[in-house]
């Protein structure tokens, strides 16, 4: 499957391993990614917090550039970038006058704005139906799939899965042999952009998330957003401080989990770059392949 690619700023920096693992598994999943030339930052939270027009212009420029490259769909692995790009497209689609105004600001046409897809949406589509021998090391662990906020909210923008108790990541993890747990903090916010200005709040919020996952027997947290990873992993000392105890549970990107299951070496997937060491208990491979449904519980 061929599609456009908007890496986002963190892929090159603090979430380098996300980009590495994504590009490592892409050929295994027959996914060809064409990066947008000279893309710029989507504006993240800073832009929309301070300046509405800027918060539309920055992502719109990327959509305009992608349009020039004839890209119709974009993989946007960072959930925040995904939300900004999809949100800009949504708003500019509805408001023609605003769209013309932004076209003037970015000096690019926005007639055909490509659709943004988040990592789970794309993985779900490209994951082969039959894995058979390719599943070298089924990821036979209990995992807590953490979706965070922006993959599923607001529903009108994300248009993906369901905003309460989403299932797509759980289903993908099941296909690589994991046992996703039913837990209560799948979509509770990790603290987002407060990582630097209010690390204490991030610590408190993430402590609740980890406590719920760990108390229900999770052996790893699986994420699909660099911000969530950063808060749950890099800020572990703040979390431990807020909780008054130490959490060892590792946080993996879904791309890393898939990479491990497909037999790729951990170093290639950037596991050594995590702050919290990725140590998973050994277990005999017992892939569980029935789909998880909401009605199945109790």
């Amino acid at each position: 499957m061929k599609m456009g690619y908007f890496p986002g700023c963190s892929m090159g920096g603090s979430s380098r391993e996300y980009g590495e693992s994504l590009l490592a598994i892409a050929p295994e999943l027959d996914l060809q990614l064409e990066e947008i030339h000279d893309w710029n930052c989507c504006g993240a939270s800073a832009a929309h917090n301070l300046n509405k027009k800027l918060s539309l212009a920055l992502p719109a420029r990327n959509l305009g550039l992608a349009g020039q490259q004839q890209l119709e769909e974009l993989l946007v692995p960072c959930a925040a970038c995904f939300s900004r790009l999809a949100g800009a497209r949504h708003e500019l689609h509805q408001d023609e006058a605003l769209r013309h105004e932004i076209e003037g600001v970015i000096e690019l046409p926005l007639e055909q704005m490509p659709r943004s897809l988040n990592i789970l949406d794309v993985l779900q589509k490209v994951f082969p139906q039959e894995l058979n021998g390719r599943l070298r090391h089924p990821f036979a662990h209990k995992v807590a799939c953490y979706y965070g906020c922006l993959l599923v909210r607001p529903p009108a923008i994300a248009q993906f899965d369901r905003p309460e108790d989403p299932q797509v990541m759980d289903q993908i993890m099941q296909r690589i042999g994991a046992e996703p747990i039913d837990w209560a903090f799948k979509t509770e916010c990790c603290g987002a952009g407060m990582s630097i200005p209010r690390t204490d709040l991030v610590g408190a919020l993430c402590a609740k998330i980890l406590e719920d996952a760990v108390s229900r027997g999770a052996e790893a947290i699986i994420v699909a957003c660099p911000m969530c990873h950063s808060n749950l992993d890099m800020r572990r000392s703040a979390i431990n401080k807020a909780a008054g105890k130490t959490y060892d549970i590792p946080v993996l990107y879904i791309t890393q989990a898939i990479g491990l299951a497909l037999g790729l070496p951990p170093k290639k997937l950037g596991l050594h770059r995590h702050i919290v060491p990725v140590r998973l208990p050994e277990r005999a491979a017992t892939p569980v392949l029935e789909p998880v449904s909401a009605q199945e519980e109790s």
Partner: protein
Amino acid sequence: MSAHAASVVQGAALADSLHSSTGVDVTRCYQCGKCSAGCPLAGEMDYPSSVLMRLLQTRQPEMDEKALRSHSIWLCLSCETCFCRCPMEIDIPKVSDFLRAEAVRQKKVHPAARNILRFHKSFLDVIHYAGRLYEVGLIADYKSRSWNLIQDVAMAPVLFFKGKLKPFPHLVKNRRALHKLFKKTQNEEARP
């Protein structure tokens, strides 16, 4: 509700500017509290979201003032939980965005939120310069604004050796286009 509030004529009520600028109508809010109940940081806020709505609904200058000067709007994570659950489908994160921009414009930012504002400004400055986030630059800029020199210093070498900190920024090629973009949206932006 003070007596003099009714006599203030200058300027529209914040609720009205909000409506014309974003389309959000605060009169729809019937104060059910579901937003505040689900807000992850409601416990930290001086005015949780449902109370902010009420402040705006009064259409009184003193209440508008309280809303602008609140800490809540800066604590808001834009996690969209409130909007997702609001029975009247009120886009509360959009209201937060509006109030934040307005608070900066009117220079009424809550003192405890200054670091948050500084962080956002540092972020935008870096983007303005490079086109993409340059984390070292961001942290340096933020420290220069916040004078929070010690924080995260211990982290830096760890991150560097793990290859997660780029010493040099990646500059977007068409920086001119980016400068133009910032310039054209400037009159909206918060001035320091």
